[in-house]
């Protein structure tokens, strides 16, 4: 379960950025997230949809305790992200499209490293590793260095790294960006698997087809503000245009005007 309440986050701009932004940013600050609230429930996929720069990554980073909110609160699996950051991290898995791995470690070494950081004992680790390696057909490259793997193999390693400790909450930050169709499919399969295991899943994207195929709940984010927050079925029922993409653009334009 993730509960986000009245979240705000502001970034100070560097001198160079201030010059580039000019008068549009007179106070020298960017309001990345402004008063955002939502809930993600177990066994459901919560989709955070927004254009580039909408604030999706900032919200997910705050949920993952990488950043602290200026105000507001976030609860993950019953723990506050500021007060109990370490406990929050123990209950979550985080996968982004830009996630890279340690090229000089082997697949097995890398997965073991993250399992150790999560305090897993050897029995649990071996059981979970065997289960996931069999499921994703990874045994052939278990002892190969990451740097020598194909991008598809690397993505499988990233998936195992994210869920080796069997987290209650899984965060996916634009996980399919730049991936080919087959590799993207493995991520979508993982999301379905997490949902079936009653995990809480939050997923950010700007790709409409992904929203329609996996989303249970939907939030639309634009310039740090939530423009829509309800279940996906309700969104579809209320659509004023013929497609999800057109509806998304219509909502953004309405917000601008």
């Amino acid at each position, binding site marked *: 379960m993730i509960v986000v309440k009245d979240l705000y986050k502001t970034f100070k701009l560097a001198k160079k950025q201030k010059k580039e932004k000019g008068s549009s940013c007179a106070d020298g600050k960017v309001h990345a997230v402004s008063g955002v609230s939502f809930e993600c429930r177990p066994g459901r996929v919560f989709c955070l949809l927004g254009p580039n720069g909408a604030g999706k990554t900032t919200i997910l980073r705050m949920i993952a305790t990488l950043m602290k909110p200026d105000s507001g609160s976030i609860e993950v699996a019953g723990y506050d992200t500021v007060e109990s950051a370490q406990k929050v991290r123990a209950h979550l898995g985080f996968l982004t499209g830009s996630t890279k791995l*340690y090229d000089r470690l082997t697949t097995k070494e890398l997965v073991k490293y993250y399992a150790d950081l999560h305090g897993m004992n050897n029995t649990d680790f071996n059981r979970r590793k065997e289960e996931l390696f069999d499921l994703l057909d990874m045994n052939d490259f278990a002892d190969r260095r990451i740097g020598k793997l194909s991008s598809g193999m690397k993505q499988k390693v990233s998936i195992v790294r994210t869920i080796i400790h069997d987290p209650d909450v899984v965060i996916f930050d634009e996980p399919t960006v730049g991936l080919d169709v087959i590799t993207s499919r493995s991520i979508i399969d993982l999301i379905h698997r997490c949902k079936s295991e009653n995990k809480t899943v939050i997923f950010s994207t700007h790709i409409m087809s992904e929203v329609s195929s996996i989303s249970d709940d939907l939030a639309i984010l634009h310039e740090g503000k939530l423009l829509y927050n309800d279940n996906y079925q309700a969104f579809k029922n209320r659509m004023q245009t013929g497609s999800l993409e057109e509806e998304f653009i219509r909502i953004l334009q309405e917000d601008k005007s």
Partner: protein
Amino acid sequence: MKTIMTIFRKELKDSLRDRRTIITMIIVPLLMFPVMIGLTSRFIMSYEEKAQVRELKVGLLAGENAVEFVEMLVEQENILVFEDIQLEEGQELITSDSLDAFIVFHEEFDRQISELGQGEIDFYLKETEEREIEIRRIMELFGEYENMLRIDRFETLNLDITIIETLSVSQVNLATPKEKLADMVGGILPYMFILFCFMGSMYPSIDLAAGEKERGTLETLLTSPVNRLQILIGKFGVVVLTGISSAAVSLLGLYLGIRYISSIPAEFIDMVMSILEPGSILILLSLLLPLSVFFAGLLLSISFTSRTYKEAQSKIGPLFPVIIIPAFIGMMPGMNLNASTALIPILNVSLATRTIIAGQADISIMLIVYLSLVVYAGAALFLCSKTFSRESAILQ
């Protein structure tokens, strides 16, 4: 502690699989001293040998004078004598490098000598550093000839030759072998140790901070249930270890170089071996440990504020002179370890190492050195932890 060790082991394994770390931490420090010692001694030896056997062309204008000297000169191996060269011609031949030396005896030379006066000789040459040994060969002949004339003169006068020696100074050098060594190499050794300590820390610190940020792995690491201080200490440990290992490997290289390069004089080998005792090595490493922590703090702080590996390299590059200058000042004659210099980081290690090599370490001053190093190391660690806690520094 278990988590810190997990991070430390992983970072160490990762670093040791990086070729750049292996080169700067092990290969360069291990080979530097043997190569330096081997090349220098071989070069000096071959230069001296060549200079001793090179054939010298010597022009002579002596007339009927100095017959013994002329005979002596002609009998020399590797000296080709050209007699009866006229003054202007001889000078021209020297200028055009056709002759190495031109010796002109005064036309009244024999008479000057027989009348108990000074025999005048003009010695023309082009004196350069590379001809020093060749010139010395001729000067030795002059010395021999002068001695011969002096003995003749004293015999003629029926005098004991020792009456001209009014002083008898016996120089007895009581400096210990360690002190002699400190004088000879006391500056260069700490300079090299400090440099290797810095170089050994450099690549791991760039790779483990800016490199990890650039590769996008730091963000993943930060989402594991580990606090940032544990991550920092794990990384810090590896940078400190590589820095100090690099300096220790250079010591091993020095030992191997001295032990197995045959052309080194035995006296020098004994002197170096006298500082390579476990006690001295431990003291040297104990000085390098806080220095290494200081370097690790500085380097990691800079590296964490860089977005890419290259940016970190370009920021750390200008640090080299900052490290080298105090280490270099420590090599200068007249620089001593005292209560003031003991407070200046890097310089204090350089000077303290010299005093340790000389076996003259003063406990109270050494204590100041250690205390100041611990303070600097603590400050660097604090700076680094502050940098690592800044969101803007750790997230791309």
